[in-house]
């Protein structure tokens, strides 16, 4: 803590000079800063779409494979072969965009590793070593090895890929959580040195963020599976495997969404404790006080420091965050330096992102529980058209909720890169703004093209499958049965 810093409640207000906000109005560094932030934001937004699918889809595939091993029913292998293609496609997209990010640490944010490399480095190294290689190597066997290895080896490969993607998520969320709630370190000459790895790994926000993200992945896959299956039913595909995956998607979604709402609530309370400015921005609350309403909608104005239009539930935010109407909720005006510089995140993006996330979650709740009722009433094969259209439309709703959630938490950490340790501005490279702009345009063009190609190819695969073309002509041995297929290349 520097001499100019002051304690506010249990929260440290760090001197403005240390955050480096005063120099933000200089010309070139700001341009490079803003452009680098947009570039990294675009990159990570594109990247997260695919791990969000592969983390949970890996486990879903293991489930399909195990169901086949147990029952020997053909439909489970049809399900596996269809969804493993989407897994392969998503995995490739995740790999290439992930490689891009590992380079951008160096090309755009050299200050990040120079300052906190002693903590971030080992965490990233463990991710590469314990997760990347595991998933990358066994992916080859999982995708193309079904005819070359024994069924149990193929099942094991599927498990190891799912395990690898989850381990990858674990290490990344450890590092990300540490950036929000750093502990277990000390500063020597302005460089972070690790002192307690247990404290670093199990930092206060890690368990909440990890659970929240894993459930987000589960929901994304549940709605993707349900949505694509609904689409195939709408196209007249009556295959047993399609009805099975519609049931699987709806039941998984309905089971996970209440858990996610609960996990999100706990995560919010954890954020209130450690990053109150972020919660103030999420709630759009300017003045600290009791009986703070839960704003359903408002138009926050960062310059005027007020909301222009509000629709709210009286005392709602106080009840959610403090569990009583008189609970005191922190306000943004507490996080302002003496000269008026804001030490809190920009309000509008955090406020809106949070509402998009919660709104999407509510739509998921209604649809999946409604779907559950319709499943009981009509069965998967005779589901009425309207809810099927609803599920098809919500195929990628998990993406929207996940992105909105990440924007809430990451923009909510600003102006910090590592809360209280390193400001975003101090980590950016001195690459000329024009160069960053050029590469940004290049990346955006590629990401847009690939996202369109990805969605259209998934739709194409679904349509092709709906036309009844057989997914596989091979006879599958169950786990434990003798291999009967001719092994090519032997």
């Amino acid at each position, binding site marked *: 803590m520097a001499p100019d810093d002051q304690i506010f409640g249990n929260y440290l207000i760090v001197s403005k000079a240390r955050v480096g906000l005063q120099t933000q109005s200089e010309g070139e560094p700001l341009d490079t800063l803003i452009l680098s932030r947009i570039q990294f934001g675009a990159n990570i937004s594109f990247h997260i779409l695919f791990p969000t699918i592969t983390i949970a889809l890996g486990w879903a595939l293991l489930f399909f494979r195990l169901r086949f091993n147990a029952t020997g029913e053909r439909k489970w292998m049809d399900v596996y*072969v269809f969804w*493993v*293609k989407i897994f*392969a*496609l998503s*995995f*490739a*997209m995740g790999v290439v965009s992930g*490689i*891009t990010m*590992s*380079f951008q*640490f*160096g*090309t755009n944010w*050299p*200050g990040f*590793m120079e300052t906190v*490399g*002693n903590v*971030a*480095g*080992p965490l*990233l*190294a*463990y991710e*590469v*070593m*314990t997760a*990347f*290689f595991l998933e*990358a*190597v066994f*992916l*080859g*066997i999982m*995708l*193309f*090895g*079904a005819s*070359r*290895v024994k069924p149990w080896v193929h099942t094991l490969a599927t498990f190891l890929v799912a395990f690898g993607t989850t381990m990858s998520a674990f290490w990344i969320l450890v590092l990300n959580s540490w950036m929000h709630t750093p502990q277990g370190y000390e500063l020597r000459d302005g460089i972070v*040195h*690790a002192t307690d790895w247990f404290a670093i790994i199990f930092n206060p926000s890690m368990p909440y963020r990890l659970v929240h993200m894993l459930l987000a992945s589960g929901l994304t896959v549940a709605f993707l599976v349900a949505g694509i299956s609904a689409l195939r039913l709408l196209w007249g595909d009556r295959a047993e495997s399609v009805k099975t995956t519609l049931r699987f998607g709806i039941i998984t979604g309905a089971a996970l969404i209440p858990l996610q709402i609960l996990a999100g609530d706990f995560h919010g309370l954890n954020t209130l404790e450690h990053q109150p400015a972020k919660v103030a921005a999420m709630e759009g609350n300017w003045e600290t006080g009791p009986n703070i309403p839960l704003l359903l909608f408002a138009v926050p104005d960062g310059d005027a420091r007020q909301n222009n239009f509000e629709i709210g539930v009286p005392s709602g935010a106080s009840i959610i965050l403090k569990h009583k109407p008189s609970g005191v909720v922190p306000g943004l005006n507490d996080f302002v330096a003496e000269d008026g510089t804001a030490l809190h995140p920009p309000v509008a993006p955090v406020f809106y992102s949070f509402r998009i996330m919660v709104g999407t979650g509510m739509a998921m709740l209604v649809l999946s529980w409604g779907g559950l009722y319709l499943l009981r009433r009509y069965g998967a094969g005779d589901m009425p058209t309207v809810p099927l259209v609803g599920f098809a439309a919500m195929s990628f709703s998990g993406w929207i909720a996940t992105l909105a959630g990440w924007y809430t938490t990451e923009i909510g950490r600003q102006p910090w890169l590592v809360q209280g340790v390193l400001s975003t501005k101090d980590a950016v*490279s*001195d*690459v000329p703004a024009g160069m960053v702009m050029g590469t940004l345009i*290049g990346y955006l063009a*590629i990401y847009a093209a690939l996202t369109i*190609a990805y969605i*259209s*190819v998934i739709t*194409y*695969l679904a349509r092709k499958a709906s036309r009844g073309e057989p*997914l*596989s002509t*091979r006879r*599958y041995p169950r786990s434990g049965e003798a291999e009967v297929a001719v092994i*090519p*290349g032997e």
Partner: protein
Amino acid sequence: METFGDPAVWLPWTFAALMGLSILIYVILDGFDLGVGLLMPLADDAEKDLLVASIGPFWDANETWLVLAIGLLLVAFPPAHGIILTALYFPVFVMLVGLILRGVSFEFRAKAPIAQKPRWNLAFFLGSLLAAMSQGFMLGMYVMGLTWTVSHVAFALLTAVFLTVGYSFIGAAWLIAKTGGDLQARAVGWARGGIWGLIFGIGGISLATPFVSPRIFDKWFSLPEFFYLSPMPLLSLALVGYLWWQIRHLPRPDDRRAWGPFAAAMALFTLAFGGMAYSFYPYVVPEQITIYDAAAAPESLSIILIGTLFVLPAILGYTALSYYIFRGKATELRYD
């Protein structure tokens, strides 16, 4: 840990060695699959599928060595990571675009509607080309000390072309081993062209490096080092001679020595890489920052090293398993 001497000395050394090993494995493994991508336009439509099938189960893991190499640079030598990557900002961007295009084309070419397949084949080739060219360019810039002058850029453009042709050679060598019949015979022909990339690339860098700094010159040309080191260039020449002779006589009856060119190419890449490592040691940023100056804190390096000792053998083990499972001549890729 005292028994090993000063951790501030041996830890950076160990990590430099690990990083070097990762880069070498990457260059060989992704070298061959980038090389196969470079050969795509030369193959007809049926052969294209077989080309992709020969690398399909491996490419993803191959590329992970790049992530490990850049990760080790990032975690073990953070200041060097920043300097090198900001100096190479644009070629890194070009490489990443190439790797993105190539990686997704693997999937899209097989899953998109058939009418779009030529487009994704083209993207696969262009991605491989951009990645190979930019890696060769970065290699040249690194040798020249990461400064952007006209002569350095010109040299880097030459190494870009040579490394690309060199990759196409190791790609062709892989196809000689993994395919048969007409395609194998054509791969031998491709290797006959590609070998020039190896000769000019390795030759050019070997001749240029000693003149980059007097320090490197002295490392090679002072006595008695000159004699101790002479087996390296002599062995390289012998390997080039062996390759030259092999690709005149392949394919042989019963497919004998089909693995010869690939094995010799691996040995040649290893020798060339060893020579470069010897030249630049102890610098991680050429002639500017040593591995000892750039190293992260010993306590952080130790915790990575402990994990590495357990995990790296496992990685090598299951990588070998994957190559074993997909041994033999490449066949059509099937998900079922």
